[in-house]
Structures are given as C-alpha cells and as structure tokens.
C-alpha cells in the first residue's frame, strides 16, 4: 500500500520568491522520514508540495519532478484532487470540521468523495480508523457528539483518523505535536510507530528528540539568510545524522549551537 517518493531538482516558488531550491531526495516506503531545520527553511513548504497542497496558496508553483512510485505528481493532466486522495495530510493545529460529529469527521473523506458504503461498512471503517489512531476507546460512547468537544490531543488523533480512513498511500504530518502536551505527544509518537507498518510517513518537526525517537531517516534543511531559498543540506539515516553528520551545519544545529 505504501509508496516511494522521489524528488528531483525541485524548486518551489511563492510568486517570484524562491522558497526552496534544488531538493533531491528519496523517501522510502514503510518508514518514517523526518524533516528538521530552523524556522522558515522550507520544511513545511516542501512537505506541502508532496500532495500538491502548496498550490492552494495563490501564486505558488513548483518546478522539478516529484514521483510517487514512478508517477509524476506534477505531470501534465494530473488532477491534484487525485493526488491528495493518495497522499493524506495532518496539520500543525488540529482542525476537525466544526459542523460534524466525531464519526462524521472520520468519515468526511469518504462521504465528501461520494464513496458509497453501507451503514455497517461505514461503522466498520470509522472504528478501524479510530482504533488506528488510538482514539476508539476514548470516544466509542460518544461518536455522535461534535468533534470540537474533544481535547486538543484527542482532536489531533481524530484528524489522523480522518486522514487514515481514506486509506492513503502516504501520510504527511506537519508538526503534528507542536500544539500538544507531552502525554498526547507520546500517544501520537506511538501511533506513528504503528502506522509506519502500513504507510509511508513524512513528518516535519521542530523537536529534535522527537525526530530521533520516531524517524528512520532524517533530512536537514537550512537557509543561508532571510530572503534566500531554503536548501536540503543533508539526508541520511537518523542514527547517522544524530551521531556523525557529514556537514558541519547539521552538527551545529543538532547540538544546539544555532537555530
């Protein structure tokens, strides 16, 4: 189910401003890849290009090639809607739909995409997704209550359940724990470990311990200065990045000498 992502010479622009320059990387399936780096270095921007969410912002575009198992995401005639159905995303701040109940939130992707499913099948999908997101035990008795009544950590897991209910091939996470307390963070990190058995996971994080704990591969992005484009500095196995990085800037960032 999970797929391999390959980026070649990717430049990302906001109108005339070049935000990210010349990224080449391979993201392996059934593994967790973490993006680290200082604020404004283009981690999130690059993440959003992986499911074509980048172009939602007016004037934004991408140059280069991003392949999902050999299929070019930016090829001519590619419908971004189809890309996003394969590449799910979890955002920095939990954003359940306020008009929907917990169950409707989980099934939102299915219902809004007109995937017909019987009532029992829907219940099954909802339960599976909520169990997958480690939320089932906490909400099984209040599936029809609004999603916005949950705590922040629960809401974030609800958003993860909503993303995995679509059974995507890749799951992108944009600082999924930055708004959460340590216990909720732990729950989500455990969840990431379970999810990597089935999905390709890419996670952006500002927390280096988190990158070290959850990821198999780490990519370090950096920026030369304000107004300069962000660049991929180094990408290697997490163990290597955190013990013997080849580039001095990576070592400085990880040991806290800057950033």
């Amino acid at each position, binding site marked *: 189910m999970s797929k391999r992502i390959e980026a070649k010479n990717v430049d990302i622009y906001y109108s005339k401003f070049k935000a990210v320059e010349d990224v080449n990387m391979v993201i392996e399936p059934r593994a967790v890849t973490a993006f680290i780096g200082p604020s404004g270095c283009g981690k999130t921007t690059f993440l959003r290009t992986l499911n074509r969410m980048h172009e*939602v912002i007016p004037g934004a575009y991408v140059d280069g090639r991003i392949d999902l198992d050999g299929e070019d995401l930016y090829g001519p005639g590619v419908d971004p809607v189809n*890309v*996003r*159905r394969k590449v799910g995303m979890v955002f920095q701040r939990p954003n359940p*739909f306020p008009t929907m109940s917990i169950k409707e939130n989980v099934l*939102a*992707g299915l219902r809004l995409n007109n995937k017909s499913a019987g009532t029992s099948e829907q219940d099954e999908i909802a339960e599976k997704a909520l169990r997958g997101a480690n939320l089932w035990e906490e909400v099984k008795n209040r599936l029809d209550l609004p999603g*916005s009544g949950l705590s922040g950590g629960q809401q974030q897991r609800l958003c993860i359940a909503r*993303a995995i209910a*679509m059974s995507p091939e890749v799951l992108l996470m944009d600082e999924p724990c930055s708004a959460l307390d340590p216990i909720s963070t732990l729950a989500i990190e455990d969840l990431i470990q379970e999810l990597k058995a089935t999905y390709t996971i890419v996670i952006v994080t500002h927390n280096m311990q988190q990158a070290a704990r959850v990821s198999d591969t780490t990519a370090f992005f950096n920026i030369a200065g304000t107004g300069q484009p962000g660049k991929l500095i180094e990408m290697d196995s997490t163990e290597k990045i955190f013990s013997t990085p080849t580039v001095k800037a990576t070592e400085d960032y990880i040991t806290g000498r800057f950033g």
Partner: protein
Amino acid sequence: MSTATLTPKRSASPSNSLTAGQLPAWTTPVVGAASLAVGFLAAWLLTGEIGLGLGVALSALVFLVVMHVASLTIEGGRRATDRLAKHLVVGMFLLALLPLVSVSLTALTNGINRLDPTFFSTSMRNIVGAGGGAAHAIWGTLIITGVAMAISVPIGLLTAVYLAEYGQGKPLARSITFFVDVMTGIPSIVAGLFAYALFGVLFGIGTVNGMGGAVALSVLMIPVVVRSTEELLRIVPNELREASYALGVPKWKTIMRIVIPTAISGIVAGVILALARIIGETAPLMIAAGFTQSLNTNPTSGAMMTLPVFVYDQYARPGVPREPYWDRAWAGALTLILIVMLLNLVGRLIAKRFAPKTGR
C-alpha cells in the same frame, strides 16, 4: 453581575497594601433616587410644571456629576473615569432605546383596536368607512417579499461565494465589490423606477405587477446579502478548507459541504436582516407594484397591494369620517412590525439549529 453568590465571605485583613477606597454598593441606587428628586424639583422650579423630559435630563446630569465627584474623592481617578464611562454608555443605550420603545408602544396601542379577524380576512374591496381589512396587503407583502427572496438569495449567495472563494484580487471581483457597494447606497425610489422602466420596456409601458415590485426589492436586497455573506465566508478558518482539500475533496464540494455549513447560521441571520430591511419599503412598491383595493395573489398580472403601501394609502387618503381609515393604517403598521418580529424569531431559531456545536 451576580457573581456575589459565588464569592466566599472573607474577613478583611488589617494590613493589605492592595486595598483601595470603595463606594458602598448602595451608592448607585441612593444617588439615583436623590438625583431624580433633585432633577424634577429643579425642572419644576425652572418651568413651573412637572416636565418629564427636562426632569429626566436634569436628573441624569445631577447623577453623573454627583457620582463622579463621589468616586473621585473616595475611589480615585481611575475608578472615577471607569464609572463615568459606564454611566455614559448605559445612558446612551437608554436614549437609543427610547424611540424604539415609543414606536412599538404607539403602534401597539393604536393598532390593537382593529387587529381583529375581519382585518385579516377581508380586503378593502367595496369598503367605505368602517370595516374592511388588509388581507390583500398582507398577501401582497408575503408574495412580493417571497419572490424577492427567491431572486436575491441565490444571486447574492453565489456572488458572495465567487468573491470570497474564487475571485480574490481579480479585476472582475474588485469591480463587483465596487458595484455592490454602490448598490447598497441606491435610494429605494430609484430601484422602483428601475423595475418600472424594465417592465415597461419588456412588457409594454405602464406594466405594474407584483413581479415588478419583487424585482425592485431584489435590487435593494442583493447587495445586503452579498456583503454579509461574503464577510461570513471570509471568517471561516482557512484550515478547514485545507483539511478538506487534503482529504482529496474538490473545491466546489469543499465550499458546499464545509465552508457554507460552517457559516450557515450567520448567513441565515444576514438574509433575515436583509428581508426585514426590504419588507418595510414603500416607495419602490408604489411605483412598481401599484395600488389596489382588492386581493390579487397573482404576481404576474395586475397591481398588488402591500402593507407599507396600505398604511400610506389609508393614512394619506382617508374618507369621511377619517377614524376607521387611520385605525386600519395603525393596524397595518402593527401587523408589519409583528411580521418582522416573527421573521427575526424564525431566523434566530434557524441560526441556533444550524450553529456549529461545541459539545461541551
């Protein structure tokens, strides 16, 4: 507010650097009563009679000054300013309420006489003097505003969706916004003349019917609906749109199923407000929908009476004796107020029903 029940009783600690002078709770009512007495006495001394308006004005002035001085000496400058601002705010609120209460009371006391079953069941056909009613005008108002709503809500809603979701920064969107703003300022009589001229061109000079009235009202209603809906769509958090896109939901469906439902309670409230605004229009309907004394429920042919025009007609062109005509005018005005109240009530219910649930 009634936080007093929640506050536990504390004994004052003798040495606390945080304490400050405080006016006792009974100051406001006592000073208020005293100011009333002083104010009315002064008014009586000045004019030689008990004048309500002057008395209340003088009392308010006395109250403001006494409270400010008392607070200034006991509580200090910051609290005194706070009290002064509070009293001014409350005073202005009461002042604003005055005409509202006065109008409602006048309409109620004068209109209640004729608010009987006959008023709602008969038209003015072949009625001279007492009796008769506004059935034709009530039906006319309901039909014309209903048609106006059916025209304005889809146009207004879709225009707002274009402006908020698709047109951002485009020249077309900017020009629409500009013309919508201009349209909000159109005098209603111009809207009536526009509809009259339009129907004259389309169906022959002098065409007057309910549709004409509805078109005139739509011209007035559309900009209000566009403006309020656009504002509401803009405050729907972008995160919700992104969450929906990230699930692979197309843009049109995101708007239909996520953005509009999130804002629906406000949109409904905006539409109801716009309705309340146009339902009392008189001038455009006089021109475009005309006058009649009989019931006409077909908006496509013949003149159609409406409540505001009915009120004007009864009041401005009474027969002899005048009283039955004026009674009918008041009853018509009261009916209109009741209809608007009912609309607001329905709007609130709908808004509450659709509002995003918090679940806490």
